[in-house]
Protein backbone atom coordinates (compact mmCIF):
# COMPACT_ATOMS: atom_id res chain seq x y z
CA UNK A 1 0.00 0.00 0.00
CA UNK A 2 1.26 3.45 -0.88
CA UNK A 3 1.12 6.01 1.89
CA UNK A 4 1.79 9.53 0.70
CA UNK A 5 3.41 11.86 3.22
CA UNK A 6 2.87 15.63 2.98
CA UNK A 7 4.73 18.07 5.21
CA UNK A 8 2.61 20.85 6.69
CA UNK A 9 5.25 23.36 7.86
CA UNK A 10 4.65 24.58 11.39
CA UNK A 11 1.62 22.34 11.82
CA UNK A 12 2.64 18.71 11.35
CA UNK A 13 2.37 15.97 8.75
CA UNK A 14 -0.40 14.58 6.61
CA UNK A 15 -0.54 10.93 5.53
CA UNK A 16 -2.78 10.01 2.61
CA UNK A 17 -3.74 6.62 1.20
CA UNK A 18 -6.52 4.97 -0.78
CA UNK A 19 -8.27 2.03 0.81
CA UNK A 20 -9.45 -1.12 -0.97
CA UNK A 21 -12.84 0.45 -1.60
CA UNK A 22 -11.26 3.33 -3.42
CA UNK A 23 -11.79 5.94 -0.71
CA UNK A 24 -9.01 8.45 -0.27
CA UNK A 25 -8.24 8.84 3.43
CA UNK A 26 -6.05 11.46 5.10
CA UNK A 27 -4.60 11.50 8.60
CA UNK A 28 -3.24 14.84 9.84
CA UNK A 29 -0.72 14.40 12.65
CA UNK A 30 -0.46 17.74 14.45
CA UNK A 31 2.64 18.84 16.34
CA UNK A 32 0.52 19.18 19.46
CA UNK A 33 0.06 15.39 19.40
CA UNK A 34 -3.55 15.59 18.21
CA UNK A 35 -4.78 13.87 15.08
CA UNK A 36 -7.44 14.68 12.54
CA UNK A 37 -8.86 12.04 10.20
CA UNK A 38 -10.42 13.20 6.92
CA UNK A 39 -11.78 11.66 3.73
CA UNK A 40 -11.74 13.16 0.26
CA UNK A 41 -14.98 13.25 -1.69
CA UNK A 42 -15.49 14.19 -5.32
CA UNK A 43 -13.06 17.08 -5.06
CA UNK A 44 -9.60 15.60 -4.41
CA UNK A 45 -8.41 18.95 -2.99
CA UNK A 46 -11.04 19.46 -0.35
CA UNK A 47 -11.10 17.23 2.71
CA UNK A 48 -14.23 16.28 4.59
CA UNK A 49 -13.38 16.17 8.30
CA UNK A 50 -14.35 12.90 9.99
CA UNK A 51 -13.09 13.13 13.55
CA UNK A 52 -10.37 14.56 15.76
CA UNK A 53 -8.41 12.64 18.37
CA UNK A 54 -6.27 13.91 21.21
CA UNK A 55 -3.01 12.19 22.09
CA UNK A 56 -4.52 9.60 24.45
CA UNK A 57 -7.37 8.74 22.13
CA UNK A 58 -5.00 8.35 19.19
CA UNK A 59 -2.78 6.10 21.29
CA UNK A 60 -5.77 3.94 22.22
CA UNK A 61 -6.92 3.73 18.61
CA UNK A 62 -3.42 2.82 17.44
CA UNK A 63 -3.27 0.02 19.96
CA UNK A 64 -6.65 -1.31 18.91
CA UNK A 65 -5.58 -1.30 15.27
CA UNK A 66 -1.94 -2.23 15.60
CA UNK A 67 -1.10 -4.23 18.70
CA UNK A 68 -2.52 -7.62 17.73
CA UNK A 69 -0.90 -7.42 14.31
CA UNK A 70 2.57 -6.59 15.61
CA UNK A 71 2.40 -9.46 18.11
CA UNK A 72 1.27 -11.78 15.32
CA UNK A 73 4.10 -10.77 13.07
CA UNK A 74 6.78 -11.33 15.70
CA UNK A 75 5.34 -14.73 16.50
CA UNK A 76 5.36 -15.63 12.79
CA UNK A 77 8.91 -14.48 12.39
CA UNK A 78 10.37 -16.53 15.25
CA UNK A 79 8.34 -19.57 14.17
CA UNK A 80 9.58 -19.34 10.62
CA UNK A 81 13.26 -19.06 11.44
CA UNK A 82 14.41 -21.35 14.23
CA UNK A 83 17.10 -19.82 16.44
CA UNK A 84 16.19 -16.24 15.53
CA UNK A 85 15.12 -13.94 18.32
CA UNK A 86 14.73 -10.26 18.94
CA UNK A 87 15.92 -8.23 21.87
CA UNK A 88 16.26 -4.72 23.26
CA UNK A 89 19.60 -3.11 24.02
CA UNK A 90 19.77 0.24 25.84
CA UNK A 91 22.75 2.55 25.28
CA UNK A 92 23.90 3.38 28.80
CA UNK A 93 25.13 6.76 30.02
CA UNK A 94 28.86 6.86 29.26
CA UNK A 95 28.73 4.27 26.50
CA UNK A 96 31.65 4.75 24.07
CA UNK A 97 29.09 4.92 21.22
CA UNK A 98 26.80 7.60 22.68
CA UNK A 99 27.18 10.54 20.30
CA UNK A 100 28.67 8.33 17.54
CA UNK A 101 27.19 6.78 14.43
CA UNK A 102 25.46 3.42 14.31
CA UNK A 103 27.85 2.33 11.54
CA UNK A 104 30.84 2.94 13.80
CA UNK A 105 29.70 0.17 16.17
CA UNK A 106 30.21 -2.37 13.33
CA UNK A 107 27.66 -4.42 15.27
CA UNK A 108 26.52 -6.60 12.40
CA UNK A 109 30.03 -7.38 11.16
CA UNK A 110 31.12 -8.37 14.64
CA UNK A 111 28.04 -10.25 15.89
CA UNK A 112 25.84 -11.08 12.91
CA UNK A 113 22.87 -9.41 14.60
CA UNK A 114 21.03 -6.50 12.93
CA UNK A 115 19.71 -3.32 14.47
CA UNK A 116 16.23 -3.02 12.96
CA UNK A 117 14.93 -0.02 14.89
CA UNK A 118 15.96 2.68 17.34
CA UNK A 119 13.52 3.83 20.01
CA UNK A 120 14.22 7.33 21.31
CA UNK A 121 11.71 8.65 23.80
CA UNK A 122 8.39 8.14 22.01
CA UNK A 123 9.92 8.10 18.58
CA UNK A 124 10.79 4.97 16.60
CA UNK A 125 13.32 5.06 13.78
CA UNK A 126 12.67 1.99 11.61
CA UNK A 127 15.62 0.32 9.81
CA UNK A 128 18.19 3.00 10.74
CA UNK A 129 21.11 3.54 8.37
CA UNK A 130 24.79 3.41 9.38
CA UNK A 131 24.93 7.24 9.53
CA UNK A 132 22.30 7.40 12.28
CA UNK A 133 23.58 9.20 15.40
CA UNK A 134 23.25 7.27 18.66
CA UNK A 135 22.58 8.91 22.01
CA UNK A 136 22.68 7.57 25.51
CA UNK A 137 19.22 6.40 26.51
CA UNK A 138 18.38 5.14 22.99
CA UNK A 139 16.96 1.63 22.91
CA UNK A 140 18.03 -0.49 19.95
CA UNK A 141 15.76 -3.27 18.69
CA UNK A 142 18.10 -6.08 17.61
CA UNK A 143 17.30 -9.22 15.63
CA UNK A 144 19.72 -12.15 15.53
CA UNK A 145 20.80 -15.18 17.51
CA UNK A 146 20.80 -14.94 21.29
CA UNK A 147 24.62 -14.78 21.28
CA UNK A 148 24.52 -12.08 18.64
CA UNK A 149 22.15 -9.91 20.68
CA UNK A 150 24.31 -10.39 23.78
CA UNK A 151 27.32 -9.41 21.65
CA UNK A 152 25.67 -6.14 20.57
CA UNK A 153 24.90 -5.44 24.22
CA UNK A 154 28.60 -5.98 25.16
CA UNK A 155 29.80 -3.68 22.38
CA UNK A 156 27.50 -0.85 23.46
CA UNK A 157 28.34 -1.22 27.16
CA UNK A 158 32.02 -0.64 26.17
Amino acid at each position, binding site marked *: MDVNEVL*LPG*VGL*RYEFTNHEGERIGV*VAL*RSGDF*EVVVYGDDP*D*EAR*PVFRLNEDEAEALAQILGAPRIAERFADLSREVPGLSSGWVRIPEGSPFAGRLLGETRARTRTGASVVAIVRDDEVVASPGPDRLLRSGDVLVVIGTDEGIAGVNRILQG
Partner: protein
Amino acid sequence: MHVSVALLLELGLVLAVLSLLGTLARRLTLSPIPLYLLVGLALGEGSVLPLPAAGEFVGAAATIGLVLLLLALGLEFSIAEFTVGMRRHVPSAGVDFVLNALPGAAAGLLLGLDAVGVLALAGATFVSSSGIIARLLADLRRLGNRETSAVLSVLVLEDFAMAAFLPVLAVLASGGTWWQAVAGVLIAVGAVLAAFVASYRWGHHIGRLVSHPDAEQLMLRLLGITLVVAALAEYVHASAAVGAFLVGLTLTGETAERGRAVIAPLRDLFAAVFFVAIGLSVDPAELPPVLPAALALAVVTAFTKVLTGRYAASRDGVGRRGRLRAGTALIARGEFSIVIVGLAGVGQPILAPLVAAYVFLLATAGPFITRFTGTTSARPAV
Protein backbone atom coordinates in the same frame (compact mmCIF):
# COMPACT_ATOMS: atom_id res chain seq x y z
CA MET B 1 7.22 46.42 49.61
CA HIS B 2 4.99 49.15 48.31
CA VAL B 3 1.93 47.87 46.49
CA SER B 4 0.54 50.21 43.88
CA VAL B 5 -3.21 49.82 44.02
CA ALA B 6 -3.70 51.83 40.87
CA LEU B 7 -1.22 49.68 38.89
CA LEU B 8 -2.82 46.41 39.93
CA LEU B 9 -6.30 47.68 39.29
CA GLU B 10 -5.51 49.13 35.87
CA LEU B 11 -3.66 46.02 34.71
CA GLY B 12 -6.32 43.72 36.06
CA LEU B 13 -9.09 45.61 34.30
CA VAL B 14 -7.15 45.72 31.01
CA LEU B 15 -6.52 41.96 31.12
CA ALA B 16 -10.16 41.29 31.98
CA VAL B 17 -11.30 43.36 29.01
CA LEU B 18 -8.79 41.57 26.75
CA SER B 19 -10.05 38.18 27.86
CA LEU B 20 -13.67 39.16 27.21
CA LEU B 21 -12.85 40.44 23.73
CA GLY B 22 -10.64 37.41 23.03
CA THR B 23 -13.49 35.06 23.87
CA LEU B 24 -15.79 36.99 21.59
CA ALA B 25 -13.26 36.86 18.73
CA ARG B 26 -12.74 33.11 19.13
CA ARG B 27 -16.49 32.55 19.03
CA LEU B 28 -16.52 34.11 15.59
CA THR B 29 -13.31 32.29 14.51
CA LEU B 30 -11.61 35.66 14.28
CA SER B 31 -8.21 36.71 15.54
CA PRO B 32 -8.19 38.72 18.77
CA ILE B 33 -5.27 40.88 17.54
CA PRO B 34 -7.47 43.64 15.98
CA LEU B 35 -9.46 43.87 19.20
CA TYR B 36 -6.27 44.18 21.28
CA LEU B 37 -5.24 47.08 19.03
CA LEU B 38 -8.62 48.69 19.60
CA VAL B 39 -8.24 48.38 23.37
CA GLY B 40 -4.87 50.11 23.14
CA LEU B 41 -6.40 52.82 21.01
CA ALA B 42 -9.21 53.37 23.51
CA LEU B 43 -6.73 53.65 26.37
CA GLY B 44 -4.12 55.91 24.80
CA GLU B 45 -3.32 59.50 25.59
CA GLY B 46 -5.97 61.94 24.54
CA SER B 47 -8.55 59.18 24.60
CA VAL B 48 -11.40 58.31 26.93
CA LEU B 49 -9.55 56.17 29.47
CA PRO B 50 -5.90 57.01 30.04
CA LEU B 51 -3.67 54.61 32.02
CA PRO B 52 -1.58 56.82 34.34
CA ALA B 53 -0.14 54.11 36.61
CA ALA B 54 0.30 51.13 34.29
CA GLY B 55 1.84 53.03 31.37
CA GLU B 56 5.44 52.37 32.34
CA PHE B 57 4.81 48.68 32.97
CA VAL B 58 3.00 48.31 29.64
CA GLY B 59 6.01 49.81 27.87
CA ALA B 60 8.44 47.35 29.45
CA ALA B 61 6.10 44.40 28.97
CA ALA B 62 5.62 45.29 25.30
CA THR B 63 9.38 44.95 24.70
CA ILE B 64 9.34 41.51 26.31
CA GLY B 65 6.27 40.65 24.24
CA LEU B 66 8.14 41.50 21.04
CA VAL B 67 11.09 39.34 22.12
CA LEU B 68 8.87 36.40 23.07
CA LEU B 69 6.88 36.57 19.81
CA LEU B 70 10.10 36.15 17.86
CA LEU B 71 11.50 33.50 20.20
CA ALA B 72 8.34 31.43 19.75
CA LEU B 73 8.60 31.87 16.01
CA GLY B 74 12.20 30.59 16.03
CA LEU B 75 11.20 27.61 18.16
CA GLU B 76 8.46 26.73 15.67
CA PHE B 77 10.95 26.65 12.85
CA SER B 78 12.51 23.43 11.63
CA ILE B 79 15.24 23.08 9.05
CA ALA B 80 13.52 20.10 7.42
CA GLU B 81 10.34 22.11 6.85
CA PHE B 82 12.30 25.08 5.59
CA THR B 83 14.23 22.99 3.03
CA VAL B 84 11.03 21.36 1.77
CA GLY B 85 9.49 24.82 1.42
CA MET B 86 12.61 26.06 -0.36
CA ARG B 87 12.62 23.14 -2.79
CA ARG B 88 9.05 23.66 -3.95
CA HIS B 89 8.09 27.21 -3.26
CA VAL B 90 10.97 29.59 -3.92
CA PRO B 91 9.15 30.93 -7.02
CA SER B 92 6.00 31.35 -4.91
CA ALA B 93 8.01 33.35 -2.38
CA GLY B 94 9.35 35.51 -5.21
CA VAL B 95 5.85 36.17 -6.55
CA ASP B 96 4.68 36.82 -2.99
CA PHE B 97 7.42 39.38 -2.43
CA VAL B 98 6.98 41.24 -5.72
CA LEU B 99 3.17 41.36 -5.61
CA ASN B 100 2.80 42.31 -1.98
CA ALA B 101 5.84 44.39 -1.01
CA LEU B 102 5.66 46.68 -4.05
CA PRO B 103 2.16 48.05 -3.31
CA GLY B 104 3.33 48.92 0.20
CA ALA B 105 6.46 50.62 -1.11
CA ALA B 106 4.45 52.52 -3.72
CA ALA B 107 1.96 53.68 -1.12
CA GLY B 108 4.84 54.78 1.10
CA LEU B 109 6.28 56.89 -1.72
CA LEU B 110 2.88 58.40 -2.56
CA LEU B 111 2.32 59.32 1.07
CA GLY B 112 5.71 61.02 1.22
CA LEU B 113 7.31 58.73 3.80
CA ASP B 114 11.11 58.68 4.06
CA ALA B 115 13.16 55.64 3.07
CA VAL B 116 12.70 53.89 6.41
CA GLY B 117 8.96 54.44 6.27
CA VAL B 118 8.72 53.11 2.70
CA LEU B 119 10.73 50.02 3.66
CA ALA B 120 8.62 49.44 6.77
CA LEU B 121 5.36 49.78 4.88
CA ALA B 122 6.57 47.39 2.17
CA GLY B 123 7.40 44.85 4.88
CA ALA B 124 4.06 45.34 6.60
CA THR B 125 2.08 44.65 3.42
CA PHE B 126 4.34 41.74 2.40
CA VAL B 127 4.18 39.53 5.45
CA SER B 128 1.03 37.53 6.17
CA SER B 129 0.25 36.52 9.70
CA SER B 130 1.42 32.93 10.23
CA GLY B 131 -0.17 32.97 13.68
CA ILE B 132 -3.63 33.95 12.48
CA ILE B 133 -3.56 31.78 9.37
CA ALA B 134 -2.25 28.55 10.93
CA ARG B 135 -4.93 28.78 13.58
CA LEU B 136 -7.60 29.69 11.04
CA LEU B 137 -6.84 26.68 8.84
CA ALA B 138 -7.18 24.38 11.85
CA ASP B 139 -10.42 26.06 12.96
CA LEU B 140 -11.93 25.79 9.49
CA ARG B 141 -10.81 22.12 9.37
CA ARG B 142 -8.76 22.71 6.26
CA LEU B 143 -5.56 20.97 7.34
CA GLY B 144 -6.51 17.95 5.23
CA ASN B 145 -6.92 20.05 2.08
CA ARG B 146 -4.38 19.77 -0.66
CA GLU B 147 -3.65 23.52 -0.87
CA THR B 148 -2.73 23.75 2.81
CA SER B 149 0.89 22.69 2.46
CA ALA B 150 1.43 25.40 -0.17
CA VAL B 151 -0.09 28.04 2.12
CA LEU B 152 2.06 26.96 5.06
CA SER B 153 5.21 26.79 2.93
CA VAL B 154 4.68 30.38 1.80
CA LEU B 155 4.26 31.41 5.44
CA VAL B 156 7.49 29.66 6.50
CA LEU B 157 9.44 31.37 3.73
CA GLU B 158 7.95 34.76 4.66
CA ASP B 159 8.88 34.26 8.30
CA PHE B 160 12.39 33.42 7.24
CA ALA B 161 12.60 36.49 5.00
CA MET B 162 11.76 38.52 8.11
CA ALA B 163 15.00 37.32 9.73
CA ALA B 164 16.90 39.26 7.04
CA PHE B 165 14.44 42.14 6.82
CA LEU B 166 14.08 43.09 10.49
CA PRO B 167 17.79 43.83 11.11
CA VAL B 168 17.95 46.07 8.02
CA LEU B 169 14.94 47.96 9.22
CA ALA B 170 16.19 48.15 12.80
CA VAL B 171 19.57 49.59 11.75
CA LEU B 172 18.08 52.11 9.31
CA ALA B 173 15.39 53.14 11.82
CA SER B 174 17.98 53.79 14.51
CA GLY B 175 19.59 56.33 12.18
CA GLY B 176 22.31 54.13 10.72
CA THR B 177 23.74 54.69 7.29
CA TRP B 178 23.26 52.24 4.44
CA TRP B 179 26.63 50.59 5.03
CA GLN B 180 25.80 50.05 8.67
CA ALA B 181 22.54 48.47 7.51
CA VAL B 182 24.45 46.18 5.15
CA ALA B 183 26.80 45.27 8.00
CA GLY B 184 23.78 44.63 10.20
CA VAL B 185 22.30 42.31 7.58
CA LEU B 186 25.61 40.50 7.12
CA ILE B 187 25.87 40.01 10.87
CA ALA B 188 22.28 38.80 11.01
CA VAL B 189 22.60 36.48 8.00
CA GLY B 190 25.92 35.20 9.35
CA ALA B 191 24.32 34.63 12.71
CA VAL B 192 21.38 32.81 11.09
CA LEU B 193 23.78 30.56 9.19
CA ALA B 194 25.85 30.02 12.34
CA ALA B 195 22.67 29.21 14.24
CA PHE B 196 21.72 26.71 11.54
CA VAL B 197 25.11 25.03 11.57
CA ALA B 198 25.13 25.07 15.35
CA SER B 199 21.67 23.58 15.64
CA TYR B 200 22.44 21.00 12.95
CA ARG B 201 25.75 19.81 14.35
CA TRP B 202 25.59 20.60 18.03
CA GLY B 203 21.88 21.21 18.54
CA HIS B 204 21.67 18.58 21.24
CA HIS B 205 24.63 20.14 23.12
CA ILE B 206 23.08 23.62 23.03
CA GLY B 207 19.81 21.98 23.96
CA ARG B 208 21.49 20.41 26.96
CA LEU B 209 22.59 23.85 28.17
CA VAL B 210 18.98 25.02 28.28
CA SER B 211 17.13 21.79 28.82
CA HIS B 212 16.26 20.63 32.30
CA PRO B 213 13.66 18.08 33.38
CA ASP B 214 12.05 20.70 35.60
CA ALA B 215 9.70 23.00 33.64
CA GLU B 216 10.46 26.00 35.85
CA GLN B 217 14.23 25.63 35.30
CA LEU B 218 13.69 25.24 31.56
CA MET B 219 11.63 28.42 31.42
CA LEU B 220 14.13 30.46 33.48
CA ARG B 221 17.11 29.28 31.42
CA LEU B 222 15.35 29.84 28.12
CA LEU B 223 14.14 33.30 29.10
CA GLY B 224 17.49 34.26 30.60
CA ILE B 225 19.51 33.27 27.54
CA THR B 226 16.98 34.83 25.17
CA LEU B 227 16.92 38.18 26.95
CA VAL B 228 20.73 38.33 27.16
CA VAL B 229 21.12 37.50 23.46
CA ALA B 230 18.36 39.97 22.59
CA ALA B 231 20.15 42.68 24.56
CA LEU B 232 23.45 41.94 22.82
CA ALA B 233 21.74 42.02 19.42
CA GLU B 234 20.14 45.35 20.27
CA TYR B 235 23.53 46.65 21.41
CA VAL B 236 25.04 45.97 17.97
CA HIS B 237 21.88 47.52 16.40
CA ALA B 238 20.76 44.19 14.93
CA SER B 239 17.49 44.39 16.89
CA ALA B 240 16.51 42.46 20.00
CA ALA B 241 13.78 40.75 18.00
CA VAL B 242 16.33 39.17 15.67
CA GLY B 243 18.46 38.00 18.60
CA ALA B 244 15.46 36.25 20.13
CA PHE B 245 14.58 34.68 16.79
CA LEU B 246 18.12 33.27 16.55
CA VAL B 247 17.92 31.69 20.00
CA GLY B 248 14.70 30.01 18.91
CA LEU B 249 16.30 28.75 15.68
CA THR B 250 19.25 27.21 17.51
CA LEU B 251 17.09 25.03 19.71
CA THR B 252 15.67 21.93 18.04
CA GLY B 253 13.97 18.67 18.80
CA GLU B 254 12.67 17.89 22.22
CA THR B 255 14.06 21.04 23.85
CA ALA B 256 12.29 23.21 21.30
CA GLU B 257 9.06 21.30 21.80
CA ARG B 258 9.16 21.65 25.58
CA GLY B 259 10.36 25.24 25.22
CA ARG B 260 7.32 26.09 23.11
CA ALA B 261 5.08 24.65 25.78
CA VAL B 262 6.60 26.59 28.69
CA ILE B 263 6.89 29.86 26.73
CA ALA B 264 3.37 29.77 25.25
CA PRO B 265 1.43 31.25 28.19
CA LEU B 266 4.07 33.96 28.77
CA ARG B 267 4.11 34.81 25.09
CA ASP B 268 0.32 35.06 25.00
CA LEU B 269 0.31 37.50 27.93
CA PHE B 270 3.20 39.73 26.86
CA ALA B 271 2.28 39.67 23.15
CA ALA B 272 -1.24 40.83 24.05
CA VAL B 273 0.33 43.69 26.02
CA PHE B 274 2.56 44.43 23.01
CA PHE B 275 -0.47 44.77 20.71
CA VAL B 276 -2.17 46.99 23.27
CA ALA B 277 0.98 49.13 23.50
CA ILE B 278 1.03 49.63 19.72
CA GLY B 279 -2.60 50.72 19.94
CA LEU B 280 -1.63 53.03 22.81
CA SER B 281 1.09 54.67 20.72
CA VAL B 282 -1.50 55.73 18.15
CA ASP B 283 -3.35 58.95 18.82
CA PRO B 284 -7.01 58.38 17.82
CA ALA B 285 -7.04 61.83 16.23
CA GLU B 286 -4.40 60.63 13.71
CA LEU B 287 -6.60 57.81 12.44
CA PRO B 288 -9.28 59.46 10.24
CA PRO B 289 -6.77 61.09 7.83
CA VAL B 290 -5.00 57.76 7.13
CA LEU B 291 -8.15 55.63 6.84
CA PRO B 292 -8.66 56.09 3.08
CA ALA B 293 -5.03 55.14 2.41
CA ALA B 294 -5.25 52.12 4.73
CA LEU B 295 -8.47 50.98 3.08
CA ALA B 296 -7.06 51.33 -0.44
CA LEU B 297 -3.88 49.52 0.55
CA ALA B 298 -5.90 46.75 2.22
CA VAL B 299 -8.04 46.20 -0.88
CA VAL B 300 -5.05 46.14 -3.23
CA THR B 301 -2.88 43.86 -1.09
CA ALA B 302 -5.77 41.52 -0.26
CA PHE B 303 -6.14 41.05 -3.99
CA THR B 304 -2.40 40.53 -4.56
CA LYS B 305 -2.29 37.93 -1.76
CA VAL B 306 -5.09 36.04 -3.47
CA LEU B 307 -2.97 35.99 -6.63
CA THR B 308 0.04 34.80 -4.60
CA GLY B 309 -1.91 31.97 -2.97
CA ARG B 310 -3.40 30.89 -6.29
CA TYR B 311 0.02 30.74 -7.85
CA ALA B 312 1.56 28.81 -4.93
CA ALA B 313 -1.31 26.30 -4.86
CA SER B 314 -1.17 25.81 -8.63
CA ARG B 315 2.47 24.71 -8.22
CA ASP B 316 1.16 21.84 -6.10
CA GLY B 317 -1.38 20.93 -8.75
CA VAL B 318 -4.40 22.15 -6.82
CA GLY B 319 -7.69 22.76 -8.65
CA ARG B 320 -9.47 26.06 -9.15
CA ARG B 321 -11.47 26.20 -5.93
CA GLY B 322 -8.50 25.08 -3.85
CA ARG B 323 -6.37 27.81 -5.40
CA LEU B 324 -8.95 30.39 -4.40
CA ARG B 325 -9.03 29.00 -0.85
CA ALA B 326 -5.23 29.24 -0.67
CA GLY B 327 -5.32 32.81 -1.93
CA THR B 328 -7.94 34.07 0.47
CA ALA B 329 -6.35 32.24 3.40
CA LEU B 330 -3.19 34.32 2.95
CA ILE B 331 -4.95 37.70 3.16
CA ALA B 332 -4.70 38.14 6.94
CA ARG B 333 -1.85 40.36 8.15
CA GLY B 334 -1.08 40.52 11.82
CA GLU B 335 1.68 40.23 14.37
CA PHE B 336 4.64 40.77 12.04
CA SER B 337 3.24 43.92 10.46
CA ILE B 338 2.80 45.25 14.00
CA VAL B 339 6.34 44.14 14.94
CA ILE B 340 7.63 46.13 11.97
CA VAL B 341 5.86 49.25 13.20
CA GLY B 342 7.25 48.54 16.67
CA LEU B 343 10.76 48.66 15.21
CA ALA B 344 10.33 51.59 12.83
CA GLY B 345 7.62 53.56 14.61
CA VAL B 346 9.71 56.24 16.26
CA GLY B 347 10.04 59.28 14.06
CA GLN B 348 7.42 57.98 11.61
CA PRO B 349 4.31 60.00 12.41
CA ILE B 350 1.75 58.44 10.09
CA LEU B 351 3.22 54.91 9.89
CA ALA B 352 1.82 53.61 13.18
CA PRO B 353 -1.80 54.73 12.65
CA LEU B 354 -1.69 53.64 9.00
CA VAL B 355 -0.40 50.13 9.69
CA ALA B 356 -2.60 49.74 12.76
CA ALA B 357 -5.67 50.55 10.67
CA TYR B 358 -4.41 48.34 7.84
CA VAL B 359 -3.80 45.34 10.13
CA PHE B 360 -7.13 45.92 11.80
CA LEU B 361 -8.90 45.74 8.42
CA LEU B 362 -7.10 42.68 7.07
CA ALA B 363 -6.87 40.70 10.31
CA THR B 364 -10.64 41.04 10.54
CA ALA B 365 -11.60 40.73 6.88
CA GLY B 366 -9.12 37.99 5.89
CA PRO B 367 -10.59 35.20 8.04
CA PHE B 368 -14.12 36.22 7.05
CA ILE B 369 -13.36 36.21 3.33
CA THR B 370 -11.60 32.86 3.31
CA ARG B 371 -14.33 31.27 5.37
CA PHE B 372 -16.89 31.88 2.67
CA THR B 373 -14.85 31.28 -0.48
CA GLY B 374 -13.96 28.11 -2.31
CA THR B 375 -15.97 25.67 -0.23
CA THR B 376 -18.50 23.32 -1.77
CA SER B 377 -21.01 23.45 1.04
CA ALA B 378 -21.66 25.80 3.90
CA ARG B 379 -19.72 24.30 6.79
CA PRO B 380 -21.06 24.33 10.30
CA ALA B 381 -19.19 26.84 12.42
CA VAL B 382 -16.60 25.08 14.54
